[in-house]
């Protein structure tokens, strides 16, 4: 239905084809782009970046979350800062990153990471804090302590909260990645968008937008939803 409306309005509209391409033309570009490797390459580049940035963000987030949960002093100082930092859209860091690292890959990686880190920290902290006292007492009576306690009780008990943190963190870093690539270049889907714009290839721009939407949806609906559902099934939905 939408496809038909799109194709028809595009044909009837007074805008020239390169500004408002029809659906068929877009699909053609999309398929060609994937076959020729131009789009595929950009996808791989972007995904590589986000995986790296996202992983770093998760690790940093979990570690910071641990310290905020564990030490009152850290909570009173860093805890507040993190909440403030969380409210800064990550692209805002970009000018700073360019000054620090130059207009390169590393700057993009930086904003991708920083976009997800604070959210991850906040979620990890609240996950750790909400581990029921009962589980902690049980583990301690069986002699668990230190790293074992963290690994077998605190972490698994916060899994539901951590997953919802991952989900939001992913959305933030995905947005940051596109913005960063659009402005910073260095390959990837964002840069392909920019290239399409400067060459006046609207069909390419729209193709890339479709790809971006598809990847975003797949990750959210397939990866995170499935993780969440698995945990709910295993724990029983009402266990929290």
């Amino acid at each position, binding site marked *: 239905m939408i496809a038909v409306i799109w194709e028809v309005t595009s044909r009837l509209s007074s805008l020239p084809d390169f500004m408002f391409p029809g659906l068929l033309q877009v699909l053609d570009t999309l398929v060609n782009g994937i076959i020729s490797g131009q789009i595929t390459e950009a996808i791989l580049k972007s995904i590589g970046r986000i995986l790296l940035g996202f992983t770093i963000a998760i690790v940093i987030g979990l570690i910071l979350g641990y310290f905020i949960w564990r030490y009152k002093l850290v909570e009173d100082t860093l805890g507040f800062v993190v909440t403030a930092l969380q409210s800064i859209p990550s692209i805002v860091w970009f000018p700073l990153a360019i000054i620090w690292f130059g207009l390169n890959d590393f700057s993009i990686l930086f904003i991708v990471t920083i976009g997800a880190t604070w959210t991850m920290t906040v979620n990890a902290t609240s996950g750790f804090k909400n581990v029921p006292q009962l589980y902690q007492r049980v583990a301690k*009576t069986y002699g668990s302590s230190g790293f074992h306690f963290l690994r077998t009780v605190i972490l*698994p008990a916060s899994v539901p909260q951590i997953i919802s943190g991952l989900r939001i963190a992913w959305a933030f870093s995905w947005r940051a990645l596109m913005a960063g690539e659009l402005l910073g270049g260095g390959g990837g889907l964002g840069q392909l968008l920019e290239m399409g714009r400067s060459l006046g290839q609207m069909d390419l721009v729209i193709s890339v937008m479709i790809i971006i939407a598809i990847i975003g949806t797949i990750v959210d609906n397939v990866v995170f939803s499935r993780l969440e559902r698995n945990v709910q099934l295993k724990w029983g939905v009402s266990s929290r």
Partner: protein
Amino acid sequence: MYLTINGIEKSFVNEKKERVKVLDNINIEAEKGSFVSIVGPSGCGKSTLLYLIAGLDRPDAGDIRVAGQKVKKPGPERVVVFQEAGLFPWLTVLENVTYGLKLKKMSKAEAEAKALEVLKMVHLSRYVDSYPHQLSGGMKQRVAIARALVMEPDILLMDEPFSALDEQTRMVLHKELIEIWRKTKVTIFFITHNIREAVQLSEKVVVFATRPGKIKDIISVPSMKDGVMPDSVTLHTEQKVLSILQEEIEKVLKEEMGDDYSFKTGPVHRNDSGDMGSHI
């Protein structure tokens, strides 16, 4: 004496930042292999005392010794069964039961073999691979008991373990617990607010007074180790405990409902005497 609780004092700071004394000069002794119950109104510090024995918390004064050794921290020879089973929802029944054994550095195969044996004892062999949410309340509590027993503890600390269960399940578990106690000769320290439960299960009932929690009286339960106790004997002991608690019940009710409340104990009716304990 095997377990000695000697001059325990414990206070907490409440929401208004006042120090509130919860336990005042608690002295209890228990022989190895005995079954001791503590009854008392809720909020009188029963759980607090149990956590002190478990080593989860430290007393302000006094000490607790097991076989002469001072309790300083939690240890696998003193395990706790809590009111809510407290099974880890991310582990299967078998993984829950082997949790403590793996901490003891036992090999996986050996731990699982032991766990299966104990799960059989609590009649849960068919549920080893289930997750806790798939079990009923009574089954969860059985797993919690199995998880504790598999450690072969010297002392089993039980904090109102059956109070969230329905009457039938509780009766079955009473029987199973007594069987386990006889078989394993474990020392059991059992907390309840149900007078009948205390009298039916244990050899010695420690009656707590409230605010601050202190020992009001210690009653020995006449026992016939091999047979079923005649109802009249149990009933008599129940009434004795109730009459000791009467003053405490009145104190709590007055605090909750105002000074005009007065509680009179009439003759205990057999039908609701099981409940009587839970209303104190």
